[in-house]
């Protein structure tokens, strides 16, 4: 194992290299472009044997990856924002076909209007597609989760594609200290690819054909059951990763908690700003406010068991969302609220489109919450937004 100062995108590219991926379907979109740039660089230097397929759109990127995966090759792709939305149709085809594929999403705001900064709406909007969805909170986790994603995806009890989210720019472009496992360790952890079926002229199968209503519904149920069953399998592979590769981050649970055991109040969030939240919690703890944090690492499967164990019985739960379901609140909030019954749950939607929410904002939000805020959904702006210079048709007249 070696330590290196690399960005999140480089960490993901390293994970792809270590997993011995056979084909990468690539189309550049900010902020994941440097993943494929790094892969192309590795390919040019002869470090990897990955076939890099340059396509004309994200839709084709996923289609190429899907086709390679069907043929029995370990396949990878990465995307973000509008690209993920453009892929949307193929995302469902891959999950519906039950083919193991891994994708990394550098999360970014969705237009209109144009915005390249970070938020999670592109990622959370894919939550019904049947993919397993992990979310990293630092480059180290991005590397570890990508490698684990191949293991989980190719497990015969799962056979579903896995999506790994990573905050755009905040993780993708920021360099930190990352522990890179050796190739032998990963070879030991990650066995050769397995998949439910392959395209083979000797034993032909029909894929993507018409299914009658009952058969279709039965297949939908099998995706549901496989996704539900994957919860224990993710824990199992996480423990194995801790044992065989690195014990640095505990992967034996689907979600990560911080100072939650004796806490009266809990904060639930997802992604890179967990670091700011942890610092804010330390400050509030010094002031005598017993508060803890639960960081959602897997949005799908949603671990009802862990959420209930960690959050039920608290005086209050605050969900801080970096994405929104318009007219309804944050997606994380909806999930948490539907899971726990006896506890009060409040929601904050903030950080959309790259709005910076730091430690001081977290301290403000958390202490406000402990004092008791009334509204169900609050849109929080760290800075005062002045009168917006937005042109309306009347202004133009």
């Amino acid at each position, binding site marked *: 194992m070696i330590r290196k100062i690399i960005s999140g995108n480089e960490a993901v590219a390293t994970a792809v290299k270590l997993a011995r991926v056979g084909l990468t379907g690539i189309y550049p979109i900010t902020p994941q472009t440097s993943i494929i740039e790094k892969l192309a660089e590795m390919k040019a230097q002869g470090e990897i044997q990955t076939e890099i397929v340059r396509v004309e759109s994200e839709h084709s990127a996923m289609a190429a990856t899907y086709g390679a995966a069907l043929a029995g090759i370990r396949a990878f792709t990465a995307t973000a924002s509008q690209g993920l939305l453009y892929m949307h149709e193929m995302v469902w085809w891959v999950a519906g*076909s039950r083919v193991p594929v891994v994708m990394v999403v550098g999360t970014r705001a969705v237009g209109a209007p144009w915005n390249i900064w970070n938020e999670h709406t592109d990622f959370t909007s894919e939550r019904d597609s049947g993919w397993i969805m992990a979310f990293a909170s630092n480059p180290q986790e991005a590397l570890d989760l990508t490698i684990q994603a191949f293991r989980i995806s190719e497990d015969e009890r799962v056979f579903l594609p896995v999506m790994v989210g990573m905050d755009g720019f905040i993780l993708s472009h920021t360099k930190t200290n990352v522990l890179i496992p050796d190739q032998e360790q990963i070879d030991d952890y990650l066995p050769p690819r397995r998949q*439910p079926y392959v395209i083979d002229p000797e034993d032909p199968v029909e894929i993507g054909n018409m299914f009658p209503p009952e058969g279709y519904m039965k297949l939908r149920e099998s995706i549901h059951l496989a996704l539900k069953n994957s919860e224990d399998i993710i824990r199992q592979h996480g423990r194995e990763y801790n044992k065989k590769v690195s014990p640095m981050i505990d992967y034996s649970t689907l979600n990560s908690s911080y100072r939650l055991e004796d806490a009266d109040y809990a904060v639930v969030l997802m992604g890179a700003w967990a670091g700011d939240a942890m610092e804010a919690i330390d400050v509030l703890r010094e002031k005598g406010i017993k508060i803890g944090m639960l960081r959602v690492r897997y949005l799908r499967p949603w671990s009802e068991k862990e959420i209930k164990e960690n959050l039920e019985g608290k005086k209050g739960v605050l969900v801080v969302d970096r994405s929104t379901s318009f007219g309804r609140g944050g997606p994380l909030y909806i999930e948490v609220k539907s899971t726990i019954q006896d506890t009060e749950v409040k929601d904050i939607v903030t950080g959309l489109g790259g709005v910076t929410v730091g430690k001081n904002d977290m301290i403000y939000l958390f202490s406000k919450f402990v004092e008791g805020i009334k509204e169900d959904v609050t849109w929080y702006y760290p800075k005062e937004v002045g009168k917006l210079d937005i042109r309306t048709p009347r202004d133009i007249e």
Partner: protein
Amino acid sequence: MMSLLLDYQYFPITKPGKGAGGKTGSWRVIKPVIDLSKCIGCKACFMFCPESTIVPKGGKVTVDYEYCKGCGVCSNVCPVKAISMVSET
């Protein structure tokens, strides 16, 4: 194909085979009838049938009337005129 399948695991694939959608129905007006005494088993009809309804059997051929559309291509290509098109009405 993987043998290790769990009871909840289904995959959206099928084996290629005859489909209900290709069946002829009641609209065919003429059908090919093979005179087996004339048939030399050259399988030209098998090669040319656009619906794959000619089935080679024991060195000669038979017709799968469930899928035969009665187009007459087989009758036309037969070198020994063993296939005649017979009216069904």
